[in-house]
Each structure stands twice: as structure tokens, then as C-alpha cells.
């Protein structure tokens, strides 16, 4: 079976201006919801207490909330988690001198008063200082990854134009994922951070394969028109792009469907990331490199007359 039995010849770059507008709208939109609504950060980042409880039958959320509130615990959020039998309870960080074990006892007693067969399956207490440090180290990790990849692409392909294209593409994708999380207010936890960094890796993976082909095409003729070289390269790698995105999407969708509620956020970010990453390697990374003035000679520094020409 083959999706493309002949190499396709779509004129991808011709419509790039339209896609710039689309990308810009999505990016600005994501930024806007991020600023206005913010992320629904989990206790991993904010500090606080999370309790996961399982009921023998569908849980009565309202009764559970009343029981916990009457037990004297303030600012409680009670929600379903995964199935109707699972309940997640979120509470603010522990007060000075309060111990987690006592709180657990309190919550357990309160829930038992409504349904004696309830089982506490998870009890997490995160101090506020731990949370803010995690957020900081996540931002650090993100910045360092982007920086290192910029350097790698610049060294490997001898031109900052491709590097810049790759990085903008790679930032475009997580921004959209973040926007989605802000829009839906899905819980943003540590595993989502891991997923977002994996999305960056994945998106670049896709981009670099296209770039590799661009270099190969330019190798044949450095003076070819950049736009047609890019179109040809994207077309030649298209079946691979579709296949790889397809298989990866396949497993991530399975993970979403079967991996349980703990991996929901993780798999959702990957699903979005893979779709958006495939698009961005064509219409953001490659297109941007073209508009930054990419020419065949940039990729082969030995043949170039003036080495300073390549500096940004």
C-alpha cells in the first residue's frame, strides 16, 4: 500500500502567506487565553493537597463536598476524575504546624460518614515552595532545550536561517498546546510539562528531516530557486511525514483511550503537539527560513566567498 505512489508536487510555499496569518491567529489566540484565563495548575506547581478516592458505586460529589466542608476543611474542590466512581479532592497547602497525616484522617473520616466503603487511593501534599521551584526548573529546561537545539541546527546546517525557522516552529507548537490547556482549563501537571518538551523534540524531529532533504536538494544545484527546492523537499518527504505522524498519533491515541486518567493530560498534549508539529515543520519552520532569505550557498560554507555573510 502507498498513499503517494508518485512523488507529489504540491506547491506548499505558494500559500505560505495565508498560513502565516492562520499561525499568527492561533499563536496570538493562545497567548490571549493564556494571559486572560491562565493555566489550571496542579498541586505539583501551586502546592496544596490532592486526595483521590474510589467509591464502590457512582460517587455523590455533592455529599462528599458537604461532608468535607462540615469537617472544617476550607476551600475544597471536589470533582469526578476519570470515572464516575473516582473522585478527586483538591485543598490549599497545609497550614503552619498542620500535618498531612491528620488531614488525611480528617478527610477519610468525613468521606466515610457518607459512604463507609470509600477507599483513599492517593494522598499528595506538596509544599508551596516545592511547587514554585518545579515551575522554575521547568522553564529552565524549556529554555535550555530551545537554546541547545538552535546551536545544533545552526552548526549542522551552517545557517542561522534554518535554525531560526526550526526554533520558531518549535515554539509555535508548545504555545498552541498551552493555549489549549488554558482554553479548556484541563489540569496542567508535571507530566504535561514532560509531554510539551517531548512535543518540542518531536516537532524538531519532523522539521530536521525536511531540512535534511533541503540540504540534499541544494547539494545537486546550489543555484536552484529556493522556493522550488523547498517545495520539492517537502513533497519528497511527505509520505514519510504522514506515515510517522500517523504511527505516533496511533499510539498516543491508544494511550489517551486506555492509559487511564493519570495520563490524560500527557496524551492530549502529545496529540495536539503531533498534529500541530507536522503542520509547523512545513508552514512555519521551512516557510520562515525561506522568507529569512535562505539560499543554497548558505548551506555550503566552503563554496562561499564571504564568510561574514552568514552572520546574523
Amino acid at each position, binding site marked *: *500500500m502507498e498513499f503517494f505512489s508518485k512523488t507529489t508536487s504540491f506547491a506548499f510555499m505558494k500559500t505560505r502567506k495565508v498560513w502565516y496569518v492562520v499561525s499568527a491567529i492561533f499563536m496570538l489566540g493562545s497567548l490571549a487565553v493564556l494571559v486572560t484565563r491562565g493555566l489550571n495548575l496542579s498541586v505539583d506547581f501551586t502546592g496544596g493537597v490532592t486526595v483521590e478516592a*474510589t467509591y464502590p458505586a457512582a460517587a455523590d460529589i455533592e455529599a462528599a463536598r458537604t461532608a468535607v466542608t462540615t469537617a472544617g476543611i476550607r476551600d475544597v474542590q471536589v470533582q469526578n476524575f476519570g470515572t464516575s466512581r473516582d473522585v478527586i479532592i483538591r485543598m490549599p497547602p497545609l497550614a503552619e504546624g498542620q*500535618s*498531612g*497525616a*491528620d488531614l*488525611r*484522617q480528617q478527610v477519610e473520616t468525613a468521606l466515610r460518614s457518607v459512604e463507609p466503603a470509600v*477507599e*483513599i487511593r*492517593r*494522598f499528595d*501534599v*506538596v*509544599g508551596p*515552595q*516545592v511547587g514554585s521551584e518545579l515551575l522554575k*526548573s*521547568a522553564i529552565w529546561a524549556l529554555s*535550555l*532545550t530551545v537554546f*541547545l*537545539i538552535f546551536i*545544533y*541546527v545552526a552548526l*549542522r546546517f551552517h545557517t542561522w536561517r534554518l535554525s531560526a525557522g526550526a526554533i520558531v516552529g518549535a515554539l509555535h507548537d508548545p504555545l498552541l498546546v498551552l493555549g489549549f490547556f488554558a482554553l479548556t482549563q484541563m489540569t496542567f501537571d*508535571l*507530566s504535561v510539562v*514532560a509531554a510539551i518538551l*517531548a512535543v*518540542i*523534540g518531536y516537532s*524538531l*524531529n*519532523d522539521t*530536521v*528531516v525536511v*531540512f*535534511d*532533504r533541503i540540504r*540534499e536538494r541544494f547539494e545537486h544545484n546550489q543555484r536552484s530557486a529556493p522556493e522550488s527546492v523547498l517545495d520539492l523537499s517537502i513533497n*519528497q518527504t511527505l*509520505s*514519510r511525514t504522514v*506515515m*510517522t505522524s500517523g*504511527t*505516533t*498519533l*496511533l*499510539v498516543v491515541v*491508544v*494511550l489517551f483511550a*486506555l*492509559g*487511564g486518567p*493519570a*495520563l490524560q493530560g*500527557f*496524551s492530549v498534549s502529545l496529540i495536539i503537539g503531533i498534529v500541530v508539529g507536522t503542520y509547523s515543520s512545513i508552514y512555519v519552520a521551512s516557510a520562515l527560513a525561506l522568507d529569512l532569505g535562505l539560499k543554497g550557498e548558505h548551506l555550503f560554507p566552503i563554496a562561499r566567498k564571504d564568510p561574514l555573510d552568514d552572520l546574523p
Partner: protein
Amino acid sequence: MLEFARWKYWLVAAVLLLALVFALPNFFGEDPALQVARKDRAPMDAAAQKSVEEFLRERHVPFSKSYIDTGRVMVRFDDVGGQLKARDAVNDGLGNDYITALSFAPRAPEFLRVIGLKPMPLGLDLRGGLYLLFQVDVNGAVEQLLSNYEQDFRRTLRDQNIAVADVNTIKADGDKTNGVRVLLPAGADTGPALKLLQEKFTDLSFKTNDTSSGPAIDGVMSDEQIRTRQNYAIQQNITTLRNRVNELGVSEPLVQRQGPERIAVQLPGVQNSADVKDLLSKVATLEFRMADETNSIADAVTRGRAPLGSKLYRDKNNQPVLLKREIIVTGDQLTDATSTSTQEGPAVSVRLSAQGGERMLENTRANVGRRMGVVFIEISRQMQKNAAGELVPREIKTEKVISLATIQGVFSSQFQITGLSPSEARDLALLLRAGALAAPIFIVEERAIGPSLGKQNIEQGVRALLIGMAAVFVFMVIYYKGFGLVACAVLLANVVLLTALLSGLRASLSLPGIAGIILTVGMAVDANILIYERIREELRNGNSPQSSIKAGFEKALSSIADANITTLIAGVVLWIFGSGPIRGFAVVLTLGIITSMFTALLGARALITLVYGGKRKVARLSI
């Protein structure tokens, strides 16, 4: 002609065989087991194993097998019922000498266990347990050292009859306490005091200062010294926590440093954090005091209080002991304690700081032949109801005499405590080392995962992995036919290799780790796809099947390398910066990239060359 060097075949075969062996223990599953260890931490031998077995037979507790694993006896059972019965029996009958822990023993054949191969350890989110993150009050440790200096300054100056207005710890620069200030009476000469302090406390740097209340001398710790002290405090606390965790009888506990001032503790199988936390966050210290040999202990016990100038204690066996109120040296003057053996039998060799040594010297000079006691003090925090019925934290102090021995001769900063059994000596050394530090620790993060959630996580994770892999297999075979089958074999080899690496590195598998394996499966086919698409392209360009395969592998190489290196960068950064679930994911992602490159470039090549290579004529490829 399509060829693949013979040594490469051998390499692929050898690596895969090795991986298979390493991955093997994971496929057998685990049996419920009971871990039995000696209370004094001495390793158990075959004789001890036999006595445990005989004991269980006597009590009619059925078990399937027992063996020795790192000094402890593991007893395996067919069901959890037998495991629990055995635990109760051992605790009941042998509880004085042994501690037990519920555990799991791999069901893998004997020979795998003997050569040290084990299944990969499961993270707490997959088997349930308690995770605690402690913050060490490192500044408290520095302040504590400085207040020792403060006392030493006072004593030194007083001994030399130098008048002092006040001695206090100060914040010489910045917002952290880092020095001690000696304030002299107005108009006093700083010279003699400065000279004395500089001579006696060579590790501090001194300078004089004119303050509004008079001339002052500041002794300041260097940044290096502060760092050393902080590291020491953390190391000490890790030792303390390790010792205490061992007392809990938990199987495979983990105590490790996390970042500059945190310690993470993982206790598989533990659910109730109350008892555990209480035990772990106790602050302990030591005091050396002379025994009160003039008053009667019996009198003190009957009257319920000690005579003036003395204090009534209890020793390890709960026997009353009467010690003098005056403290010779406290535990924070203790710099090291090790168990050794001397002519008089097992002993603990103790080393004190210079100041502590001096005080000990004075004391022993005057008290040869008398007895000196070592008091072990633990401070724990407990929640108690106050008069108004509210729960408030209260500090509870327990004091116990752990050693009472006769002073044989004059000694100072180095001496030995004798008259102990080997295990007592080992325990005392540990306790002294562990108890010597009183830098407070407090819990900043606490996560408890119930066993049923762990079980559900692992079931869902493994099911998602199997179904995801199956879906990719079907897809690849439909799309690439014969070559798709090769990709499936390669993918399978990749998962085996990854499992082997994780088992060999003893990296614990968590739920995000399983997600990482699933993602790796999806992304690992990419290398195959790149190669196959290249081969198809070469075929379309009219090249012969064999040369298309060759060119396909060669031309795809640079794309595969570049694409994987970028993902590798993200993986490694996550590995370094991440903690908890992020790291669990990053480890798998990073290793997965490496294994998938190996299997796709060498494994796939070997298989395809085996099918299409050599001198045979190939008319068309199944691609």
C-alpha cells in the same frame, strides 16, 4: 551487491541475546514474599535461613521457597494469605531478633537470580507506597555550630579573665547568620582578646570593629566553611534517615539527596504516613554526663524524683540510671564515631571537636575510675489536642542512656567506649553518628499511593503499550508488507533492548516511564519509515532492488541521526532538570532513542540483508 559485514551480524546477535537475558526476569512476574532481617543488621547466613524455615514449619505456615538476598532471608509464598500468616508468626515468635517486611520476590528461575538479574524496580505509582520529601534546615545547622562557638568564646575568654560585655551570633554580611561577635566593655583593648581567639579558633577569620556600644571582635565563617557545614548537615541527616528507615522494616526503601537541601525518601508498600513520619523526622542529639555515684538510685526511684544536682534516666533495658545534671559535652561536639575491635572486645571509637576534647580532658582528669553515661535524646513533633480541643503540634522529648561505662584513663578528643557486644558497638556507632546532628528536618512534600491505584496504573499502562504496539504492527505490515514485518521485529527488539537497559541500570519504572515506552514505540518506527521511503524512492528512480536497499539505508542515515539528536537533546535536558515523573519519562525517552537507532540501523539492516542480500538475484522487493 548487498552485503553486511559478518562482525556486524555477530554484534547484533550478541547485543540482542544479552538484552534478552537481561529483560527475561521481567516476564515472570512476582510472588508475595517476606523479608526477614536481623535487628542488629548483621547479615544472615545459611544457618539463620534454616532456622527461619524450621520456625515456619513448626508453626505450620506453608511457603514455597527461601533464599538469601543481600544479607536478608527472603521467603516466597504462593499467596498473600501465607505471606501475612508468616509475618505474624515471625513477629510473634522471633520478633526480638528479627524485623520483617512484606515484599515481592521475582518468580524468575534460580539461575537468573544467582547471576544478579532482577526485573526492573517499579516506581511508587505502580506498586503503591509513600514518598516523602524532607527539607533540611541547613541554615539552622550553621546557626547551631555558631552558637557552639558562642559558648566556646565565652568560656575561653572567661578562663583567661578577659572582661566581656556580650557574645552573640551575628549576620556579618547578608541575611544569614554567619559569625559570632564578642562585644568588649567600652574603652577596652581588643588586642589580648583578639590574640587569644585567633590562637584558639584557627578556622574562623577575625576582625575588630567599632560599634556604638563599644569595641567588638567578629569571628566569621567563610562561605566555603558554611557550605561544608551545610553539606555535612545533609549527609548526617541522610545517614540518620537511612538508619531509621531500616528500622521500619520496609522492603527496598530509598533515601537519596535531592537538590542542595532536600532528601527524598521512598517507602514502597507503606500507606499510613503518621507513624512513619513521626519516626523519621525526630531530631536526635547526645549528651555526655557523669554518673551520680553518691546517691542511691533505688531512693530516687521510690521517691519519684532525683536528688538535687542529678537527673533520673532509664537505660536501654528500662533500668533506672542516675546521672549528674552538669553536661560535659553535647552531641554537636562529636565529629565522628566508628565501631572497632580492641583487646577488650568490641568498642566504639569516638572523636570530638577540639573544644569538646578539651572539656573531656578536664573532666576525665578529675574522674578516672568513675562512670560516665551517654544520653541519647530524641525530639519529635506530635499533634495533640489542647485545652480548647484544637490540634496543635507539640514537641516530645525522649531521653535514654545508651551507654554507661567506667573511665579507664585520661583522654580528650579521641576515646573509646568499651564493654559492648559487636552488634551493640555497631548500633551505638550508628546512633552516635546519626544522633550527633540536630539540624531540623521538615516535610515539604508527601505523596501516598494506594496499592490498588498502583495495580490499576500498571494494568492500564501495559494494556495501552500492547494495544499501541499491535496497532503500529498492523499498520506497518499493511503499508510495507514484508519490510513492515521486518519493522515489527525491529520494534519488538527495541522494546526488549529498552527493558534490558532499564533492568540493568536498575532505573525504576513509573507510569510516565510506561508512557515514554509507548511514545518511543511510535517514534522508533520513524527510522524504519525514513529508510523504507528512501528505498521506495530509489526503486521509483529505476534502481535495482539491492542497490535501492543499500542507497536507502545510506541516504536515510543523516536524516535519522539529525532527527534523533534533536529529540535526544530534549530528553537529556529533561533527565537533568526534571524530577519525579518528568525524570521517569526522560530516562525512558533518552534510552529509547539510543536503542531505536541501534535496532533500526543495524538490526533492520541485518534482517533485510539476510533476506535479500548476497549474490542472489532479487527481482522485486516486498515493500
